[in-house]
């Protein structure tokens, strides 16, 4: 479902972020991408959601050839992907409910459906009581759960998580990981970029290891091996 074919990404000032990276991710897989900061994890995610274009190689997502998508085609494409980030990226001037509802609204879903679905998903992440709070009134863990609710409400084919626990305490970290596992079990493909050794080792799922922009290891039942 996701294919990286010999992808190289060089930034304008000559920095090589990825070099000849190739991998395939099947539907319903839970894949961790690990590596130090600057190893290329975020670049992979940027290429996958079309925020950046590869310098060489191809990126496929289902029937889309991501590197060929025009700016005007990106919104529709991104509705197939749910993304959560380390810094949450919630809309500060919208409540938790509105943030989640927004993902449905952009897809043009009817109001009735939004009013039913959004509270359900918020309940699933344990935030039904704080539905009408603004992000500034929520803790880090709560914000990330809103972000997860927003990412999953469109039933995306893939959920991408870019260091989702980077700003969270251990308790909230495990809450988020539990949610990701649950989403995976419900049938979504999950792609988790992280440098948290403990998480990766506990998950016991496929691990892609990056080092200086190169893919150095791809194991079906991997461990975090970088020191």
């Amino acid at each position, binding site marked *: 479902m996701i294919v990286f074919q010999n992808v190289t990404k060089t930034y304008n000032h000559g920095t090589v972020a990825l070099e000849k990276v190739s991998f395939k991710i099947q539907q319903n897989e839970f894949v961790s991408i690990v590596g130090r900061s600057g190893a290329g994890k975020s670049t992979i995610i940027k290429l996958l*959601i079309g*925020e950046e274009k590869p310098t060489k190689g191809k990126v496929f997502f289902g029937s889309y050839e991501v590197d060929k998508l025009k*700016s*005007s085609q*990106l*919104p*529709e*494409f*991104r*509705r197939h992907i749910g*993304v959560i980030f380390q810094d949450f*990226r*919630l*809309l*500060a*001037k*919208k409540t938790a409910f509105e943030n989640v509802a*927004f*993902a449905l*609204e*952009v*897809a*043009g879903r*009817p*109001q009735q459906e939004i009013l039913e679905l959004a509270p359900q998903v918020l309940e699933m992440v344990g935030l039904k009581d704080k539905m009408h709070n603004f992000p500034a009134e929520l803790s880090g863990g709560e914000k990330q759960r809103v972000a997860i609710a*927003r990412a999953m409400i*469109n039933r995306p084919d893939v959920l991408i998580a870019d260091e989702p626990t980077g700003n969270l305490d251990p308790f909230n970290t495990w809450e988020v990981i539990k949610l990701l596992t649950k989403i995976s079990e419900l049938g979504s493909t999950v792609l988790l970029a992280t440098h948290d050794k403990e998480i990766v080792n506990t998950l016991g799922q496929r691990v892609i290891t990056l080092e200086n922009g190169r893919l150095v290891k791809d194991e079906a039942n991997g461990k975090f091996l970088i020191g």
Partner: protein
Amino acid sequence: MFVKILRIIKYGFNNFFRNGWLSVSTIGIMVLALVVFESLILFNIIANGAVESLQNKIDISVYFKSNVAEDSILNIKRSLEGLTEVETVHYVSRDEALAEFRERHEGDEVIMQTLDQLDENPLLASLNVKAGDPRHYDTIAAYLDKPIFENVIEKATYAQNHIVIDRLISLVDTIQNGGAILTFFLSFLAVMITFNTIRLAIFSNREQIGIMRFVGASNNFIRGPYVIEGVVYGVIATVVAFLILIPFINFLSPYISNFIPEVDMREYFANNTMRLFLYQAFFGIGLGILSSVVAVRKYLNV
């Protein structure tokens, strides 16, 4: 489609209210810009009134010797009317001049008695010549200075009023040029200030725009609410600026009428309320929309 438009409108109003002070200060700046814009319109009305009033005061009077027959004066009148520079020529016969003179000095017995003692009408027939453009009096004066008129014309006022007319011409020019420069400069200022204020307001939203793109919002769905917000800014600023204008005009109008009788601001305002309001609304709302569209565009490339 319809649902999306409704959502865009809803978000526009949401943003407007949730932005709170940012909205208030943006509107404040827009009100200032619109007041400048209004003042320019009013300034131009006053300046045009002043120019017209000055131009009406300028003319050349040509007095004819008392022995010149009315027919030949009327001939000269027709030839003057043939000149492109001349706008109107008004003939005042000797009798009319006398009647006017008597009327003007009605209460003055000395003058009346002196007049009554005279056998003959002491006043001369004259042509009152007005040019469309004050600069043309030179040409008209030169035309009247021709030798063929030497025997019939007693005197022409141009020679006496020459300096005053020149000064008035330069004054009118200064008002018109100054007005044009001021209009251009202040309009430019008003546009730039409004544009940059809205840009700054949206600049503080640039991350939000990026997030909306990530969630899969189309550009129109992102841009829409900002445009609506721009419209709301424009409408409110227009109304506020207009409300400021009304007492201002009422206060100023009598003073201006004192100074330039041709200009009655209050009446002008009453007759043109709708037009002035629409000008402003067009300026305010147009600027609101345009600034929003331009400012958002910059942050949509993710």
